[in-house]
């Protein structure tokens, strides 16, 4: 993607900070040179110490392309991390970091792409999927979407109220929550790890088999979820994955 390719480092100011869950906080960045992006793309963030040492990480964009110039990154605090503890413990509104983007041309969805769409996210793996869900809502797209979102507990369901609000519209967006360490709270939700039966039922909420499936999360989650999708009859060519962690 040439636009991704040509974007050099630029400064971005933290314009807002919003705690999402006990472990995830959203940071809103105002780039000095705003850019267009696609739902599912990411940015690289670069931090520089006084002696010139630099650390860089990739973070998926959570905001919709329609959200304006401000980029939302929902960052999970990793206790043994180097960059995420800086954001959680040090960064504040008004601080500047360096940012580069948008990046990535594969794990992306546009409302002009065909549906139905199956999204499967584990933990903070929901972030790029949230950009797609928000993009669909902003465009008032009629593409049918099912989002299967696995979290450990109810309070760790990132964007929970917003997602349930979108689900309540009954406009073709279906939210399927599954909690791995607590009982389900809603009648249509689950309390177990993602499996084939859950994928079959999620696909059943769509009017037709998904044309595209996006799976994002830890490596173990993506391996299990992608295999469950294949076992549920989804062709491997339809499935796009994004993984993080070891």
């Amino acid at each position, binding site marked *: *993607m040439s636009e991704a*390719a040509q974007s050099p480092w630029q400064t971005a100011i933290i314009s807002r900070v919003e705690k999402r869950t006990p472990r995830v906080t959203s940071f809103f960045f105002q780039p000095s040179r705003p850019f267009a992006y696609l739902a599912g793309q990411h940015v690289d963030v670069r931090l520089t*110490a*006084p002696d010139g040492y630099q650390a860089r990480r990739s973070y998926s964009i959570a905001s919709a392309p329609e959200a304006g110039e401000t980029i939302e990154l929902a960052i999970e605090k990793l206790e043994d991390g180097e960059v995420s503890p800086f954001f959680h413990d040090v960064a504040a509104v008004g601080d500047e970091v*360096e940012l580069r983007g948008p990046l990535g041309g*594969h794990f992306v969805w546009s409302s002009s792409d065909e549906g139905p769409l199956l999204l499967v996210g584990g933990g903070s793996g929901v972030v790029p999927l949230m950009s797609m869900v928000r993009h669909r809502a902003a465009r008032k797209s009629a593409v049918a979407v099912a989002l299967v979102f696995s979290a450990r507990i109810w309070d760790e369901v990132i964007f929970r109220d917003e997602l349930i609000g979108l689900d309540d519209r009954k406009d073709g967006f279906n939210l399927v929550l599954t909690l791995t360490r607590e009982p389900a709270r809603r009648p249509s939700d689950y309390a177990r790890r993602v499996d084939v039966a859950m994928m079959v039922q999620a696909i059943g909420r769509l009017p037709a088999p998904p044309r595209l499936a996006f799976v994002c999360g830890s*490596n173990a989650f993506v*391996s299990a979820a992608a295999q469950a999708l294949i076992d549920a009859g989804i062709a491997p060519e339809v*499935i796009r994955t994004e993984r993080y962690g*070891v």
Partner: protein
Amino acid sequence: MVTRGFSGRRPPTDNDARIPPGQYLEQGFPVLSAGPTPRVRAEDWSFTLKHGPRPIKKWNWAEFNALPLSKMTRDIHCVTAWTKFDTPWQGVLVDDILADAGIEPPTDFTLAHSFDGYSTNVPTKDLTIGKAMVALLYEGKPITADHGGPARLLVPHLYFWKSAKWLTGLQFTARDEPGFWELRGYHIYGDPWREQRYTNDP
């Protein structure tokens, strides 16, 4: 631009010479791929050498494993910014594949092809004279499916997306033809020491 309040957790300085700019040291072995993990059985695997559309030679699993096995222990560098030291691989050097086919490299460019349709381009000179292999073992054991088993390309001096997983063949091409990620915003060459991550990086 110094980031307020950031001191970083830099690696020990004696490692500086081994860590390319913008990379951090990783002890685990992260997995990255564009799609689900293909499960390729050794008995279904084959490796084809091509010049353009024309097959030069094809090996099945047993034939390929009968080629000379070499060891390479190398530092690897992923474009997502992790670097892993001293990864131990065994496999067949591209030199030995060419020797078995009885050819010299016919063109300056090569496309590596994978079982799942992935492809990546590497200049031919970056594959020969001991620089690259088709790896069959990691830490002395068969490579797991997540890491590209049964066979993956290993081009350790370039960013690791060039080391295509689930390899099914190498194809010599007349021109430098971008592969899967190179068509999606990633650098055509990918030298970690020059930080050639994305298209148009210098």
